């Protein structure tokens, strides 16, 4: 048992506890925000110190490898950006700032554990740690919409957890173990390659995880929860929670169920096609920007699942990108882009107190830089160069075509065209509409720093993607 391997998570947990304790004794609550953001340096430093390690511990339940370390750093960066962007939002729940920051940190810890376990029960616990923190955060505003969102998320999330647990139980029942690598070994050994019961287990696992990543038909919670939750939490849900879901799926399906990739690959391919189409088509009809981005995040779950689907027809002879590396890069670029968009929305809606797209009219005059940042992020979501979204799409499409999924790519590119319509509508309103008032839109330095980081990241990855792609390639190199 090597506790050092767990140091990022332990330090993060300690940080959350420190924030809660400080909350009791400190009057000036802004210090809590500073402490929680600055404190993230510690787990990040531990993560970087572990970089390159490839070990397991706790009887194989915990694994520290390039993949989990990549995701740990990823979640820490996202948590930092979310916390920074929360500074402009925190006045809405003045009495509970400490709990808010601590819950964000704890859910980040849950996500880090999700990326780093290879044992079904640990995965389930990590997932619950993440989810329960997020349920609470969703209802944090305590107004009717937020409470409804929190309750809805909790109830549907509980159902999804039950389904997931059931799927895990079936896999365990057939293979006799909860360790992913042992499951993989037991599939050919136990004659389970054509087992309908195992296939049923896989379907249940897809359903359980599908809830986390918001794929059709487990997406119905997304619009309401995204709309009702505090905007920083919406951003958090749309990127971190989704990324954690994908990290677990990659780990479980590649390590445990690799021999059955032909079966689950096609499930993901079909789900991808339906998910992206539904997300994009319904997004057209939205008038609330948070709801629109909710459907856009469903659509992006569809694009992301192309990276899962692209593995099924794995042909060792081909060069080119593998599905997982494309997926990881897409996740990173999507996270930066979507966070950037939500941070801009936080600043704008703080001033105008509305999330209606129509109220963004003439925003380019009132807040030129915020509008430019939001426009840049929306353009990246369409996938137009020179942004991260462009390279991410090219890369994931290349992976899919390489594995013979040309039909899926054609659906995806047509979807990208549909999405241009509703993303550009926001740009149009901001740049062409007449301002509803002449008041400027203020923003704090913390929010501006987070937004600049996201936007520069989007541009940087669009121009020099290899910087991150190289890391993504190493991160997934353990998957065949």
């Amino acid at each position: 048992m090597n506790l050092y391997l767990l140091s990022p998570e332990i330090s993060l947990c300690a940080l959350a506890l420190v924030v809660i304790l400080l909350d009791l004794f400190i009057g000036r609550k802004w210090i809590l925000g500073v402490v929680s953001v600055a404190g993230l340096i510690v787990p990040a430093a531990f993560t970087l110190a572990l970089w390159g390690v490839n070990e397991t511990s706790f009887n194989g339940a915990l694994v520290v490898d390039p993949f989990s370390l990549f995701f740990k750093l990823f979640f820490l960066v996202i948590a930092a950006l979310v916390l920074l962007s929360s500074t402009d939002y925190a006045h809405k729940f003045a009495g509970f700032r400490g709990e808010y920051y601590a819950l964000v940190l704890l859910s980040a810890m849950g996500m880090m554990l999700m990326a780093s376990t290879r044992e079904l029960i640990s995965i389930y616990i990590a997932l619950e740690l993440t989810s329960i923190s997020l349920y609470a955060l969703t209802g944090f505003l305590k107004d009717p919409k937020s409470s409804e969102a929190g309750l809805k998320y909790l109830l549907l999330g509980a159902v999804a957890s039950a389904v997931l647990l059931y799927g895990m139980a079936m896999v365990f029942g057939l293979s006799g173990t909860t360790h992913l690598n042992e499951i993989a070994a037991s599939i050919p050994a136990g004659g389970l390659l054509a087992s309908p019961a195992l296939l049923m287990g896989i379907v249940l696992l897809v359903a359980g995880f599908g809830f986390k990543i918001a794929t059709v038909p487990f997406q119905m919670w997304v619009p309401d929860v995204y709309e009702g939750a505090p905007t920083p939490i919406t951003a958090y849900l749309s990127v971190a929670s989704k990324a954690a879901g994908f990290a677990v799926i990659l780990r479980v399906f590649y390590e445990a169920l690799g021999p059955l990739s032909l079966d689950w690959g096609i499930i993901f391919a079909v789900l991808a096609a339906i998910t992206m189409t539904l997300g994009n088509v319904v997004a057209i009809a939205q008038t609330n920007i948070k709801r629109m981005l909710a459907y856009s995040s469903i659509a992006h779950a569809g694009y992301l699942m192309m990276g899962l689907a692209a593995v099924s027809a794995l042909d060792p002879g081909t060069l080119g990108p593998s599905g997982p590396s494309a997926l990881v890069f897409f996740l990173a670029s999507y996270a930066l882009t979507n966070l950037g968009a939500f941070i801009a929305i936080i600043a704008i809606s703080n001033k105008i107190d509305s999330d209606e797209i129509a109220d963004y009219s003439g925003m380019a005059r009132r807040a030129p830089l915020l509008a430019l940042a939001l426009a840049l992020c929306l353009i990246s979501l369409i996938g137009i160069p020179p942004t991260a979204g462009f390279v991410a799409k090219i890369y994931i499409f290349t992976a899919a075509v390489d594995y013979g999924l040309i039909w899926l790519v054609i659906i995806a590119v047509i979807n990208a065209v549909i999405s241009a319509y509703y993303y550009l509508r926001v740009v149009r309103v901001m740049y062409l509409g007449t301002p509803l008032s002449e008041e400027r839109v203020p923003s704090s330095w913390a929010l501006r720093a987070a937004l600049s980081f996201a936007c520069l990241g989007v541009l940087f990855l669009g121009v020099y993607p290899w910087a991150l792609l190289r890391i993504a390639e190493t991160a997934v190199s353990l998957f065949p």
Partner: protein
Amino acid sequence: MSFPYLSIIIFLPLMGAIAIALLPRAEPRRVKLIAAFFTLLAFLLSAALFFMFDRSLDGPQFVEQASWIPSINVQYFLGVDGLSLPMLILTTMLGFLAVLVSWRIDRRAREYFAWLLVLETGILGVFCSLDLILFFLFWEVEIIPMYLLISIWGTGRKEYSAMKFVIYTLLGSALMLAGILLLYSHAGTFDMVALAQMGLEPALGSLLATAIFFLLFFGYAVKLPVFPFHTWLPDAHTDAPTAVSLILAGILIKMGGYAMIRVCVSIFPETSQTYAPLLVALAVVSVLYGAAVTLRQRDLKRLIAYSSISHMGYVLLGIFALSQVSMTGATLQMFSHGIITGLLFALVGLVYDKTHVRSIPELGGLARRMPIILVVFSVAGLAALGLPGTSGFAAEFLVFLGSFRSTVVSGIQIYTILGVLGIVITAGYILWMLQRVFYGPPKAQYEGVLDADRLERFTIFSLAAVIMLIGIYPRILTDVIDMGILPIFGGLGL
């Protein structure tokens, strides 16, 4: 690696845009001077390239090559050959003139000129890229500037037209992307030079080759535009500000024709031959339909816009007649039409600026008020209908000569003759338009209307001079174009 001329030319306008965006105080005049400076610099540099270009080599020159995304073999790979060099010069020239044409724009001038320059960078990149992903990247860059330029500074149903432009273009490029990736998954490279030399078609099989060919072709056909994918063009043209119409008609749609030669014909010589009869027929339909519809237009700007459809039909005819002469003619036609239509749009813009009327029936008797505009308008109009001594004649003559003698499509003589008929209709609408707008009794409402001022005269005279120069001595370009077409024609194995 030698001196990176091409990167500098491509990114000069972008640097200008950044300079404009960072300007502390954005007085319109200063913004315009910066824009003019950077575009002029790009033009002068590309003109220098024209003289440094080695006319005895047929491969790409001034090559720059660097790995960009190693894992999928994407390169930053630039180069120009005889096919792209004229397009490069056309772009920088019209880019500079577009800035001059916009001199009167003061509303949100900073944004306007910044986007105009970004647009130019995108188009320049398309003509210089030799890597399909880089090519696609630049192809897409142009969308957002165009969208904003049309929808903010346009007139009429500008938002509708801008969105229509975006959706058409994106749909075309989406399928093109599918084609590019499908090609990559079988060839393992995005390198356009290598792809053209590979002789991929036997390995792909005719079904797959046809599928990829048409996925790519569709993207380019929307851009060119080819009937029946043309409906975005009149809307976008009519509602765009003058300088944007000039760029749209002058260079943007040439990306389609250029890409058809560079990608479709070069990489798929056999598939091109198989489907040439179909595409040639489509070309003739574009020519005749475009010309016939143009005849019926009552809006001056829309008339010029529709005439592009018919003129681009000649480009398509020249390309898929697949003879060396006709492809050279098609390339020359793209250059010549770029200049002619650019000039026509600039003139229409002038007439509209002075009279605030674009409807042909309402205009009339302007000859006395604006003699200089009339003269240049007549030159441009006559060049559009292919009068000898103008670039239009040289280009169209080569297209017709080449396609008449082409051996690829049986019965192409009939198509060519039908295409020539298009010229007759062109003469009809050009002369009729000149007559209705400029001649007839002077109208009282245009009493105090002024002629072109000094800057405007400089713009239109310089374009007219280029038209005459190429009309009188076409070899100045055909020598270069021939070197670009030669290897592509050689690949056809005829």
